[in-house]
């Protein structure tokens, strides 16, 4: 029996929500990947704890900050890398016939942002338990963490699509392609999170936060425009 073709186009938002639900369901069914990611964060934090405990206790705040973001950066690359790579070419062709490419990239970005936000909050929690909590402005820190999660997700989603096309060792290629693009964002994030750690006046971080927001919008818009070309191949 031939499936009925729908004469009315499905709204973009419905396509996105369906794809998002599909991604979450897939993640839940293949719990090994999710578990691996959580263990990755956990064991990295634990290794940091062990190495700092050699020198007796907590790291100084600048080191705390730098390590936190490095851990998050690598966790983000690992988390996003599997997004496009775990899909087979047949699966991609199947999606291609069903939905718009714009829906795919937006759904993937949204999914990665939520995933990375979860990973970031978990990382912060573990970090606080093992390495202490020198944050003086927690609200700003968490808001910055959320901006960072969204920023990493928007940047790395398209990069992971590119790396998946290249085949071979995707994770290495993703780091090579993604890190230079992310350095400006990372600099801003580390600056704001340092301000939050030191409990400086929020007015000082305002400009950086606005720039971060604008950057997220630019990157998401460019990904939205470019992804259809990537998908067509």
């Amino acid at each position: 029996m031939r499936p009925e073709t729908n004469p009315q186009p499905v709204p973009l938002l419905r396509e996105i929500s369906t794809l998002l639900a599909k991604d979450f369901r897939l993640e839940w069914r293949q719990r090994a990947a999710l578990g691996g990611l959580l263990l990755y964060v956990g064991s990295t934090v634990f290794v940091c704890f062990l190495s700092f405990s050699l020198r007796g206790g907590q790291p100084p705040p600048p080191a705390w900050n730098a390590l936190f973001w490095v851990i998050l950066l690598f966790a983000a690359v690992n988390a996003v890398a599997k997004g496009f790579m775990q899909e087979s070419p047949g699966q991609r062709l199947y999606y291609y016939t069903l939905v718009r490419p714009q829906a795919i990239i937006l759904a993937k970005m949204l999914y990665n942002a939520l995933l990375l936000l979860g990973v970031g909050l978990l990382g912060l929690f573990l970090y606080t338990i093992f390495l202490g909590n020198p944050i003086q402005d927690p609200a700003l820190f968490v808001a910055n963490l959320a901006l960072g999660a969204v920023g990493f997700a928007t940047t790395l989603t398209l990069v992971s699509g590119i790396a998946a096309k290249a085949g071979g060792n995707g994770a290495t290629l993703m780091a090579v392609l993604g890190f230079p693009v992310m350095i400006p964002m990372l600099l801003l994030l580390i600056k704001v999170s340092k301000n939050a750690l030191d409990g400086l006046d929020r007015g000082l971080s305002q400009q950086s936060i606005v720039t971060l927001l604008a950057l997220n919008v630019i990157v998401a818009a460019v990904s939205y425009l470019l992804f259809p070309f990537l998908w067509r191949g």
Partner: protein
Amino acid sequence: MSKATIGIIISCISLAVTVGAVWGGQRLIESRGRCLWKWVAVALILGSAVAGLLIPVPRLPIVNESIRNLFFHVPMWFGMIMVMLVSIVYSMQYLRRPSARLDILAHEAAKTGILLGVLGLATGSLWARYTWGAWWTPDPRLNAAAVALLIYGAYLVLRGSFRDDQQRARVSAIYNIFAFAAAIPLLFILPRISGNSLHPGQTGNPGFNKYDLDSTMRPVFYAAVIGWILFAFWLTQVSSRLTLLQHQHDDQ
């Protein structure tokens, strides 16, 4: 007129000049037979190099005679930015209408940009060694330059990791546009936000605006900028012609 209005007018003019230069650059790179502009490039670069070493310059604190690096270092960065913009436009044209020729042009333009970027880093580093006492400092401007070169290094690595020509051309065009849009504007904004840069034109040393006031330096500087930009286009033309010929030879 208020300061903001003048700022907006200047931004609009520089945007128009940039767009015009990119368009003209593409015409020059693709042109055949005409070689007057190459003589102009040679004359401008040679003239600005000789004049740059000979003309009297103002004695400013810290920089002193090393101010002459303005005639060499800064035009190289101008040339790099111009030729990379040309590369981006070729990548956009490729996505619109794919052809091997546009891909080669985008690639060769990016390679010329890398060469000029390395030259800019080298001249800047040498200057910093004698003016600041270190080859490299954690300055926002310097970090920005390093990030720009890392991005184009990644572009070359990406190109190297494909077997299929069309796939390589399309995906690298996408990365070219994406990386440029995501990182390069910020590289111009970040040094201005952080505000604690030592680089001339920022807060630390006497700035570019002060040099600009000096009317003997200005014509030489502009000549050098135009000369180096033309040189970048010329280099791209030669290398893309060579690659196109190799391409045709392989096809036969």
